[in-house]
């Protein structure tokens, strides 16, 4: 049985179902609350009240249903719970919890986040009216869209506050003290005489009590933890080699598996001969999986070596043969038939562009691999009536359903253990590796199969960031930007991604123009049109999704017009910016960088502002042209997030997002020849290296009323700010990523 199940058998769980049903999840949307999954397998006499807090003899365990990909999700979720529960961060354990509908991601609902399209497909399928209600019904437990903090902000604190007040009631009942004479501290209820009753000792009594639902969250002035730096709860483990990731998991009796798929995406396996591989040391079997073969062996390396020794015959791939052909498909997609949305249409663009000098340009963004440093993998064991899965995933409910389908089981008979992840960047929003491990496991009933991708397979079979193309036409007058008409063509990430889960994604894909259509600039004549190109390579969400291309296009186009107007990139953006929060972000970054116009002497600065996932984020990049290439010297970043939960984790995430954006813009692309990725390891996909890393100064602003996530918003402004800086330093206008096609970097 699962670890969680075992613990639950001797465990008391506390919190409030009333909170889960009414206050947190919105009973107005769906009346019936989700079951608390921690109640499963409880012994008679034990109780479980909230799905977020478990108290047992070993201490307090916080259930943190958003997965940790490296962004510190466990840490910030634990911090939010600990704030109201009155436990110290070093007193708690965290557990990602089982896949369960109650952990659906509220913040992914459209009213709360821009990351909305997944729900549209689901909504259609469920024929429901309210998107939030649908997502709740399906229990879409997803980590993505920079939603962990927005989703948990109220939920986790309310659950913890309910647990705290219930424990106080239990202490009052046990001691006869008045509840209002009790306080809580460091995992204990403190009696008036100073005696501390540990929560663990009160658990049994609290089990029989109605949870307290009438609670108020503490005001910011009394926060102990939120907004202050804390040692991240996983830091010591991650600095001592003692943090176990999915790739480190072992299950008794398991076999190691390596996979070899048709290098051409979507191509099948015509035939194979495993004679030579089967004769290799440690090899146990070679089996067929969808699109290729898998080798089972007693050692990961032996399995990987043997996979290369299998003689395979690949079928044709369904993709255009060359990148030139793919770009032609995009170029041909700017048509009325393929128009997907026109969310921005201010003034009269057609009239404004009917006369005078028209400035025009075309932009491109390439496919990009996610390539988290831990390759994807999964352990799956299938038995006659149940299955168990150990994997790092952002979509545990889909994993559960897919394993059940392939193994011929019911989802409730599939136990999923979500593992710590060595990065993701959206990669683990897909679960092909789990499906493949399950395909193998059903051929070896009872034997745990650990499938580990080689780096080459991981990159070749990644579903990359979408390619995209944009066309700009614009006009300037009297030193000002007058008209900007931006057209963007890209395949739909959401249709591709949801299609692999058997879900439709009808309606426009808001990710095609994300970060462009909502650019907070009052250009008098301003239009943003999205065109949906046919799917070429299968594509998926890559850190910041659509804004990663559209944010670049919009800022790059704006820069060209500002230059033509003879204006300053910062001053003109400030003049045009009509969103108060975004404007403060721009002003902040102008002040931080001491922006005073051109630098001269081979140095240059660029600025970009993109609002994505509800966060206006502005960056200034400063570069120097040296004898050995462009050197990025400094970056200043300001972002409006409503609240910074932990400033150190915040700064680290923002710096990482900037480096992610800069590194890929500098030198990364995936190109396909005959359907096969040409870059399959880090020798051809470098990203940023430490010697190229600039100084990065970060400021989080807290002027907005809504709490936002910061995992993705720092990415989109990085590339256009870098392009602007390089133009200022060298006069070379960059319209296509990666930039090292046109300039050298140190």
């Amino acid at each position, binding site marked *: 049985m699962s670890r969680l199940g075992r613990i639950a058998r001797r465990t008391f769980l506390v919190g409030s179902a009333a909170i889960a049903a009414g206050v947190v999840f919105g009973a107005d949307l769906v009346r019936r609350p989700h079951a608390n999954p921690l109640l499963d397998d409880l012994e008679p006499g034990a109780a479980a009240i909230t799905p977020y807090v478990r108290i047992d003899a070993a201490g307090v365990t916080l259930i943190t249903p958003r997965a940790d990909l490296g962004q510190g999700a466990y840490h910030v979720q634990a911090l939010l719970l600990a704030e109201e529960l009155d436990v110290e961060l070093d007193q708690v354990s965290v557990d990602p919890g089982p896949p369960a509908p109650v952990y659906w991601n509220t913040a992914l609902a459209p009213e709360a986040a821009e990351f909305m399209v997944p729900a549209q497909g689901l909504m259609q399928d469920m024929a429901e009216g309210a998107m939030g209600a649908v997502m709740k019904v399906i229990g879409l437990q997803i980590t993505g869209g920079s939603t962990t903090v927005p989703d948990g902000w109220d939920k986790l604190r309310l659950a913890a506050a309910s647990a705290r007040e219930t424990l106080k009631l239990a202490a009052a009942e046990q001691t006869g003290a008045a509840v209002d004479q009790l306080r809580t501290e460091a995992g204990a209820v403190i009696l008036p005489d100073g005696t501390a009753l540990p929560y663990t000792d009160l658990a049994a009594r609290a089990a029989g009590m109605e949870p307290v639902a009438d609670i108020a969250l503490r005001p910011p002035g009394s926060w102990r933890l939120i907004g202050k730096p804390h040692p991240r709860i996983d830091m010591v483990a991650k600095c001592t080699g003692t943090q176990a990731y999915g790739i480190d998991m072992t299950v008794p009796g398991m076999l190691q598996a390596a996979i070899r798929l048709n290098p051409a995406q979507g191509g099948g396996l015509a035939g194979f001969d495993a004679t030579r591989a089967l004769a290799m040391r440690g090899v146990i079997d070679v089996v067929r999986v969808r699109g290729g073969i898998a080798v089972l062996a007693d050692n990961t390396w032996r399995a990987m070596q043997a996979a290369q020794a299998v003689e395979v015959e690949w079928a044709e791939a369904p993709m255009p043969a060359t990148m030139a052909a793919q770009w032609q498909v995009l170029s041909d997609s700017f048509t009325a038939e393929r128009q997907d949305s026109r969310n921005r249409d201010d003034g009269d663009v057609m009239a404004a562009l009917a006369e005078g000098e028209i400035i025009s340009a075309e932009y491109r963004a390439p496919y990009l691999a996610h*390539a988290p440093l831990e390759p994807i993998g999964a352990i799956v064991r299938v038995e006659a009536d149940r299955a168990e899965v150990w994997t790092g995933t952002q979509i545990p409910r889909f994993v559960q359903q897919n394993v059940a389908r392939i193994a011929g089981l019911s989802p409730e008979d599939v136990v999923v253990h979500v593992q710590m992840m060595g990065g993701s960047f959206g990669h683990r929003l897909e679960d092909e590796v789990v499906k493949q491990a399950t395909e193998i496991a059903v051929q070896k009933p009872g034997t745990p199969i650990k499938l580990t991708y080689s780096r080459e397979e991981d990159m070749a079979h990644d579903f990359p960031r979408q390619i995209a193309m944009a066309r700009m036409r614009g006009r300037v007058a009297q030193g000002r930007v007058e008209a900007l008409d931006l057209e963007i063509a890209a395949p739909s990430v959401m249709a591709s991604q949801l299609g692999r889960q058997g879900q439709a994604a009808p309606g426009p894909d808001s990710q095609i123009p994300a970060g462009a259509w909502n650019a907070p600039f009052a250009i008098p004549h301003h239009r943003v049109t999205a065109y949906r190109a046919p799917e070429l390579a299968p594509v998926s969400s890559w850190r910041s999704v659509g804004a990663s291309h559209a944010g670049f296009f919009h800022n790059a186009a704006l820069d060209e017009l500002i230059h033509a107007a003879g204006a300053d990139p910062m001053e003109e953006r400030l003049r045009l910016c009509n969103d108060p929060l975004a404007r403060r972000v721009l002003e902040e970054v102008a002040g931080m960088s001491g922006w005073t116009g051109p630098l001269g002497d081979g140095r240059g600065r660029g600025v970009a502002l993109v609002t994505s996932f509800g966060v206006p984020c502005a960056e200034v990049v400063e570069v120097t042209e040296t004898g050995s290439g462009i050197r990025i010297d400094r970056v200043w970043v300001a972002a409006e997030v409503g609240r910074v939960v932990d400033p150190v984790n915040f700064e*680290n995430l923002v710096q*990482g997002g900037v480096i992610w954006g800069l590194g890929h813009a500098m030198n990364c692309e995936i190109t396909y020849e005959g359907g096969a990725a040409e870059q399959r*390891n880090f020798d051809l996909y470098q990203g940023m290296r430490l010697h190229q890393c600039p100084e990065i100064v970060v400021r989080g602003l807290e002027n907005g009323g809504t709490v936002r996530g910061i995992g993705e918003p720092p990415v989109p402004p990085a590339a256009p700010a870098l392009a602007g800086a390089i133009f200022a330093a060298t006069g070379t206008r960059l319209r296509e990523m990666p930039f090292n096609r046109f300039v050298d970097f140190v």
Partner: protein
Amino acid sequence: MKLTVNGQTREVDVEEDMPLLWVLRDELGLTGVKYGCGIAQCGACTVHLDGAAVRSCQVWAADAEGAEIVTIEGLGTPDAPHPVQEAWIEAQVAQCGYCQSGQIMQAAAFLAETPDPTVAEIDDAMSGNLCRCGTYPRIRAAVQAAAAKMREGAQ
């Protein structure tokens, strides 16, 4: 063959050309050593071989015989961390943390050779270790802090 890992002699029965990385991970259970690329491009598998930082994906098991092999598990522990690990924890370096074993092993070997490094020397020594999360600013700071700690410790 016999390997000396973290001060202990371990008997392993593997092919001569099995990369040390997989001997450590799959045969000896030392999973602090990470697989990232297999071609010496990421540095996640960095260990010490007679004090030198090497990419264990490129070292044959047979070539490690007779050498002192140290992995992240042998460098320090949560209760008794190496100064470099202390500096990493204090600087709150890790995000996903997957590359950090290799980063720390690289830094520890570098600082043993170069106790008072310049920023340029740090950049040079650490640029073969890839961090996809982008913790480079904190790695730089942690290497400098570790250098100071180790110099103090040596006095």
